[in-house]
């Protein structure tokens, strides 16, 4: 690698890192140096071709501190885990979980520079282990309080589903109040042999937030992971899932719906590595993009040598709702085994003119008809979300998006 004079963001973060280093559990120097060696990725890095972190790297953020005053809204009265500014709030949580206690686990610091930054600076996080079948969804709230210094909240979390365990975990990301802040988090997911996890993420950060979340996942034999993400908030957001499937017969489903407008950028990046025979992966991402917003989808399926009978499919569809909206998609297949069924599809364009005409010819005004079609388009991702607070919350956000005249 060619040495660069000033890597974006490094010096400011070094200062911040040194200021909190003593309070962090574990030894973090190596992780920070792994970040410092590369800095914030630029557009020249292939994985960040479409999402520029330049403005983020220029901004100065202070490490967020625990906030004991924050009023956190909940979806319901079910079991919950609450984190504020990246710190676990046991007083607000109703599920007893372990704290994350220092660097280990799957998200190694030598991968993405931002994961290394998280590994260096994360001060807290939850570690949830599911050993039995849990019927009631567990709500996990990641709340961040913006502040004048622009806090950076970095938590490191882990969900483990033991053999025979099953659960539905809802991770919500919210900003409490207006102002800039930066969330750089990691949730590691491990579903062991025969375990089942439904993981739903509702990203509803503040309008000036930057949200980067990295989800390394591992699926054991016959494990099932269904992960769905709804993205509405943040000025810039990236949800990056890297699923490793070493388990035969595992089933992975990744779904996403996003609605962005103004100058938002929503990036959904996934990488699925099939390393064992007979596993299945399904991906469906749908986005409605208005204003001058941008949608980014990068999906990567790898089928390693020997992962025969792999069944991997990927679909990405985007609706461009305004003249200045933009979508960039890169669905990649990388296949080293012959007995496989893999495909991807991508579409981009405006609302279907024929469908619009059909509705208008039946007396439905243009705006309402468009709204109806956008709702229908996104609702595919909502299909398997049962009636309840989560579904209502997502629907309200879609309505809000449409009412704002995206």
């Amino acid at each position, binding site marked *: 690698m060619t040495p660069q004079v000033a890597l974006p963001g490094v010096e400011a973060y070094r200062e911040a890192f040194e200021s909190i280093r003593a309070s962090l559990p574990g030894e973090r120097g190596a992780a920070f140096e792994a970040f410092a060696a590369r800095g914030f990725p630029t557009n020249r890095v*292939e994985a960040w071709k479409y999402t520029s972190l330049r403005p983020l790297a220029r901004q100065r953020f202070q490490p967020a501190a625990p906030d004991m005053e924050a009023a956190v809204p909940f979806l319901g009265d079910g079991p919950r885990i609450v984190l504020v500014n990246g710190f676990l709030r046991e007083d607000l949580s109703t599920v007893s979980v372990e704290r994350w206690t220092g660097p280990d686990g799957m998200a190694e610091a030598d991968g993405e520079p931002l994961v290394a930054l998280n590994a260096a600076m994360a001060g807290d996080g939850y570690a949830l282990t599911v050993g039995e079948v849990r019927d009631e969804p567990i709500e996990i709230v990641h709340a961040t309080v913006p502040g004048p210094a622009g806090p950076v909240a970095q938590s490191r979390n882990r969900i483990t589903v033991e053999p025979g365990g099953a659960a539905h975990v809802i991770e919500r990301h919210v900003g409490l109040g207006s102002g800039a802040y930066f969330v750089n988090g990691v949730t590691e997911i491990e579903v062991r042999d025969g375990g089942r996890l439904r993981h739903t993420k509702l990203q509803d950060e503040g309008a000036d937030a930057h949200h980067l979340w990295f989800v390394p996942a591992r699926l054991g034999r016959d494990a099932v992971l269904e992960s769905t993400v709804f993205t509405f908030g943040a000025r810039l957001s990236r949800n990056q899932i890297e699923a490793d499937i070493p388990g035969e017969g595992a089933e992975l489903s990744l779904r996403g719906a996003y609605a962005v407008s103004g100058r938002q950028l929503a990036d959904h990046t996934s990488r699925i590595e099939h390393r064992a025979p007979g596993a299945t992966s399904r991906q469906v991402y749908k986005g409605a993009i208005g204003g001058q917003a941008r949608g980014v989808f990068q999906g990567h399926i790898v089928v390693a*040598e*020997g992962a*025969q009978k792999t069944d991997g499919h990927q679909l990405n569809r*985007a609706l*461009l*709702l*305004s*003249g*200045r*909206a*933009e*979508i*960039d*998609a*890169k*669905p*990649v*297949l*990388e*296949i*080293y*085994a*012959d*007995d*496989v*069924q*893999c*495909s*991807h*599809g*991508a*579409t*981009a*364009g*405006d609302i279907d003119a024929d469908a619009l005409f059909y509705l208008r010819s039946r007396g439905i005004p243009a705006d309402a008809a468009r709204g109806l079609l956008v709702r229908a388009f996104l609702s595919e991702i909502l299909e398997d979300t049962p009636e309840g607070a989560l579904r209502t919350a997502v629907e309200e956000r879609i309505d809000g998006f449409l009412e704002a005249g995206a």
Partner: protein
Amino acid sequence: MSRVAAETVEQVRSLGDRYKYGFVTDIESEQAPKGLNEDIVRFISAIKDEPEWLLEWRLEAFRHWQTMTEPNWAKLGIPMIDYQDAYYYSAPKQKEGPKSLDEVDPELLATYDKLGIPLREQEMLAGVAVDAVFDSVSVATTFKAKLEEHGVIFCPISEAVQNHPELVRKYLGSVVPYTDNFFATLNSAVFTDGSFVFVPKGVRCPMELSTYFRINAANTGQFERTLIIAEDSSYVSYLEGCTAPMRDEHQLHAAVVELVALDDAEIKYSTVQNWYPGDENGVGGIFNFVTKRGACIGARSKISWTQVETGSAITWKYPSCMLHGADSVGEFYSIAITNNYQQADTGTKMVHMGPRSRSRVISKGISAGRASNAYRGLVKMLPGAASARNYTQCDSLLIGSKCGAHTFPYIESQNRSARVEHEATTSKIDDDQLFYCRQRGIGEEEAVALIVNGFCREVLQQLPMEFAVEAQKLVGISLEGSVG
């Protein structure tokens, strides 16, 4: 001694002892000394008696090239290439300046016959004009007179530089500038020959234009430069076919093809590429780093690329369309077959700028043995591409468990009214189909060839007749040894 050879010797003398190792003139070729520097660029330009502006252009390209590094983003393992360890100019031996085929070196003609390029037969039967390139210098051009009648110019580019400098100067580098990419820049500095086609306004080229490229002398990089210009409402179909004999050392090939289509013009460019792919252990074979790009400048213009890529050890090639014109059309039909240790990273770029521009991409990749076959494509809708349309389909077929098939599509849309659709699949040969064929007494290899031909049919049928037959055979031959 031929005129070219005499010139070569004269050049050496005039350049003095800088070339102390002289030229290898022993067997069949006249060669410039090994290596690449400004003097070699000047030498190539001088031997071709080029005007000052072209020499300057070459030198600018060369200087720019020295600041560049080889691209490494493709999914290819490219061995280190020593650009100083190659010859940048070699001319085939000619006994006399040929006025007709009879005067062409019979040894050359015999080689062509082996390759299945019967010049005479083609001249008489197929009605195809062949501008055969043998190691960088065109030796025979047929049907010239007939084309001239229609006002079509079809000649080696070096001839075009002499006879039509205004056209060459206007269009050379207009689609692929000399700064474009490492290999195109190298080509701009040292290109030795290639074809030039100019179809004037309203003319429908009366025959398919065809060129056979062939790499012959060991260690000779081929740097062809092709420029095709179709004026308003004209049509031309251009065929390019390549074969190369067995050899062990890697050979570098960095061609540039530029197409320009003005209002209502249509250019159809077909390629069958069957260069030496290396042996079954991956030893030897051609490195094929090609920059092909067409500009649909005019309204309602159309450029269609069809390629059958079965040869070369490494293929790096992305025939592209720049759709400037309103209602312009770009097409890309491709079959890429890799076997043994071959590597291919190929695809297209469709850049939509004009309103209602349309593009269609059909790519079929077949990977066997230990080969790696990647489709890499870009579809870009710029803000001006109102109501533009793209449809892309790339299918990959895997034969054997040691090969790889990859798809890297890039889809970028900045226009809401533009529609982009992309589909890709990867699978293996259907066992049922194979069983069906076997059950009817068709051998396994033959059955695979049959099924693969069916898989590629959409692309094969885009080829002109003469090529389609050859290409179908090629599909079967390329996969020999991949089953069983």
